[in-house]
């Protein structure tokens, strides 16, 4: 988060040290270590029948060495990115259309609101029946999930563009096309990026669930297989991988968002 601020406080040795003075990142690491210690203690004491951290680490090593983990990651990421890219690519123009033209809004909005109420996973049975058990139904469901969350954000962005900015452009001689390209699009970028982030989150959640239900590869599929053989360490490795990848993608988007919206006035 604020890595720069962290290093600054690190150097102020003169102050009396209390827990509150520690840099947040260090506290994060401590929390993480405590969590692993508790996990280790519980499993070592055989309080629950779960694999311990060491066992999981060993399994992760095996899965990395035999390439299995990367095959799974690749399969899941490919689905998510394809579906997500298609969803966003359609959501942005449709969102603009809905925000800019009242007729388009009235035509499209009921459908968007209706489909938003259906969890994308509930579409899977129908998608499998109509599209087969290939990649298509999974990608379609991810596409749907990311499209729906992104289209609403884009449309909200367009309708909340400050009227004064549009008037300012008009009195400087801008016509509709220019206003759209030079005012409406840049002004709605922050909203769109929030939608993209939400879309990626729901796409990632959807892919794993979709793979649990119907797939021959991917992190969700691996867990489903492991479940059949009571292979708990593999389930743990997959779960942790899903968490880490989700976090990485979100941070990446957040960094992009910061760069693209540097001009925004933010509360400090």
């Amino acid at each position, binding site marked *: 988060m604020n890595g720069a601020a962290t290093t600054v406080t690190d150097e102020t040795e003169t102050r009396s040290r209390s827990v509150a003075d520690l840099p947040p990142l260090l506290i994060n690491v401590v929390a993480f270590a405590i969590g692993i210690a508790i996990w280790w203690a519980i499993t070592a004491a055989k309080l629950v029948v779960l694999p311990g951290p060491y066992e999981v680490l060993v399994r992760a090593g095996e899965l990395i060495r035999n390439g299995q983990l990367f095959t799974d990651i690749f399969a899941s990421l490919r689905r998510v990115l394809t579906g997500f890219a298609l969803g966003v690519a359609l959501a942005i123009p449709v969102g603009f259309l809905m925000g800019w033209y009242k007729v388009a809004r009235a035509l499209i909005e009921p459908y968007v609101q209706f489909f938003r109420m259906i969890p994308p996973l509930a579409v899977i049975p129908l998608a499998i029946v109509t599209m087969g058990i290939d990649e298509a139904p999974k990608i379609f469901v991810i596409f749907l999930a990311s499209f729906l969350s992104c289209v609403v954000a884009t449309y909200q962005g367009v309708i909340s563009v400050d009227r004064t*900015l549009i008037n*300012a*452009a008009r*009195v400087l001689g801008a016509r509709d096309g220019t206003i759209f390209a030079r005012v409406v699009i840049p002004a709605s970028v922050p909203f769109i990026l929030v939608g993209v982030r939400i879309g990626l989150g729901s796409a990632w959640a959807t892919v794993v669930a979709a793979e649990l239900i119907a797939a021959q590869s991917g992190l969700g599929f691996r867990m489903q297989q492991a479940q059949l053989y009571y292979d708990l360490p593999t389930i743990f490795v997959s779960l942790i991988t899903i968490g880490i990848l989700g976090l990485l993608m979100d941070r990446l988007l957040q960094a992009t968002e910061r760069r693209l919206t*540097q001009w925004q006035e933010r509360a400090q």
Partner: protein
Amino acid sequence: MTQGTQGMQPKISFQDVTRRFGDGESGFLALDRLNLDIADGEFVTVVGPSGCGKSTAMNIAAGLLDVTDGRVLVDGKGVAGPGPERGVIFQQYALFPWLTVRQNVEFGLRIKGMPAAERRRVSDHFIDLVGLKDFADALPKTLSGGMKQRCAIARAYAVNPTMLLMDEPFGALDALTRVNMQDQLLDTWSRERRTVIFITHDVDEAVYLANRVIVMASKPGRLHKIIPVDLPYPRTEAMRLSPEFAAIRNEVWHSVYHQKPQIEAKH
């Protein structure tokens, strides 16, 4: 009405300009038959209580609002929509926050299709004119309110309008910045002469800046009184504190705050 513009075509002419919002019982008359001529190069300020239709009149002149009745002529031609000869400055600055000061100033020039080198020359000139040379590449979020408004003024000037319409441009600024901005605006105006219509709710400001103060009345919004300010330019601090200034100020104050018994009764 022709005040000192006999024989010359007025720069802008409001003729029976009427604007009604909504219809029937819930509708109201924002502006009732406004007749006003403003000469080329004149600096006119408009004051009046809220609901007197001053912003409505300005938006109509800017081409951002249609008339219900009557017409507005600029250089003898009817107004239909915004035009490059009329620059507008908004109270909320309305700078494009994703563009730097220079890009904001060049916005209208790009639309005109001016080549980059010439754009640069024009924006340099106007950024310098409003004293923002050191901030040309800054984003609006880093500027103070006064600097933002100066940037907006430079942006309006850059497209070379023959007239400036300013809707309470200094309304959001603190008193000190305001006085500075008034002097700077007059300085800019004396060097790059334009016709200015300047809306304000500050009586001092109205008198200090104007050739003529237009006082409006509300319910319905209409012209109330025109008060000429016979003080020479450049206006100075000494002038601001002079008895002549005080006399005009009193007259404007009186006609703004003591208009009609029916309005007083409403308060």
